[in-house]
């Protein structure tokens, strides 16, 4: 279907002015809203992610593509009925206690949402208890911790221990990321995964939910 290809292309090119019109056209042609989302909008993001990972696309382009995705999804959501949007899984995410950085974390949220995940963003400066509470209430498959400072990265350890203390650790996979974070550190504190950037994070989450 040509219109789906056009939507895909508009997402990749970040055509925020055109995307709603194209999605409306697809709706008018009678295409299933889920198909428009998966093969059109997410199809576009599937092209963006590897290009971003390989350094051929850049942060502002990804943000514009994600804006297209959001505009399109907003039109389609009311048409999805009771079942709502199909999601790949639920992820709770936040920047760790004492750390106020959010640019990298927001980019990860954007990429995850654009790739079909439901993301609960707890924001910055999130205490271990708050993560634990969200895991208990939201029952996500994955919880993502971000830290940009060497002084706050040990809070990731604290958060994992807090999940253990509350008997929640087995219910959720813990993934971590941020400038000072390495795979060695992830192993040291017993995290289930580490990714070095937002597109690698999508791949990591895909591999976790597919293995479940």
């Amino acid at each position, binding site marked *: 279907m040509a219109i789906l290809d056009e939507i895909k292309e508009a997402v990749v090119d970040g055509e925020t002015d055109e995307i709603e019109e194209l999605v409306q056209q697809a709706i008018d042609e009678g295409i299933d809203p889920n198909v428009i989302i998966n093969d059109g909008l997410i199809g576009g993001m599937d092209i963006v992610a590897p290009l971003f990972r390989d350094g051929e696309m*850049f942060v*502002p382009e990804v*943000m514009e593509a994600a804006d297209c995705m959001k505009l399109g999804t907003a039109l389609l959501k009311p048409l999805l009925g009771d079942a709502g949007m199909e999601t790949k899984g639920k992820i709770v995410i936040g920047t760790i206690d004492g750390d*106020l950085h959010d640019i990298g974390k927001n980019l990860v949220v954007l990429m995850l949402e654009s790739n079909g995940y439901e993301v609960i963003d707890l924001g910055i400066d999130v205490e271990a208890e708050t993560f634990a509470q969200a895991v208990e209430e939201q029952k996500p498959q994955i919880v993502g911790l971000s830290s940009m*400072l*060497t*002084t706050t990265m040990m809070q990731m350890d604290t958060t994992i221990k807090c999940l253990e203390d509350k008997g929640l650790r087995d219910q959720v996979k813990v993934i971590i990321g941020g400038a*000072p974070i390495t795979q060695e550190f992830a192993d040291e504190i017993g995290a289930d995964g580490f990714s070095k950037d937002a597109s690698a994070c999508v791949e990591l989450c895909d591999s976790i939910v597919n293995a479940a």
Partner: protein
Amino acid sequence: MLTIVGELINTSRKAVNEAVEARDESVIRELARKQADAGATYIDVNCGSRVHDELEIMEWLVNIVQDEVDTPICFDSPNHEALRRGLEVYKGTDSMINSISGEDGRYETIIPLVKEYNTKIVLLCMDSSGMPETADDRMKVVDALYAKLKADGIDDDRMFFDALVKPVSSITTAGLEVLNTNRRIKDKYPDTHQILGLSNISYGLPKRARLNRVFTVMTMTQGVDGYIIDPTNQKTMADIITATTLIGQDNYCKKYIKSNRKGFFDIDD
């Protein structure tokens, strides 16, 4: 007088961390020497990535650097214990601490060191309410910190405000807000200094060096007189020298002419 803090001795850089692991002094010595020769006025020492042995490594690095060069050291850590360890073994008289911010607790733990060792101090324009977005956000922190420092007897000349650079890739006006802040600090507190670690400006974009260099020159026009950079990057240093001349801080264009004679400008532009 421009302040150039050479940023290369940082254990979050792979080569430095490996040298630390192997206790290989020669790598650290060479980095200190290269930066001093390139015009660094302070040598930054940052081993914050060594979460388990930061104090011990700080002492080790400081001893090597001060043995190799006479250039003053910039002690770079949010951890006051690591700063103290470094300052205790330091033999020089001029030094800098990087950094204090308006965040809860940070000022109180670090200011005693600034006083005791009579250091210069880098002041990050952020507080516990979060990262600043606008120039107004930043000026609130600047005003609060300035008042506190004055009350603690710190002279304007020892204050180095860092306006906190964020990426233009995620916030379109991130550069503009910093430039506006620079001008306002310069107008309001003319005897203080301003310093920037500005490579964050280009995060997420191609050809980052281009953005970094142009932004460096733009901030100089707004009153910034210090940079935390890799001084061995000849292009950046050539830009800074040239800009110094153009903003009227190079009598008889002496620095510019001398730098040219020394071959500093013999690089591809």
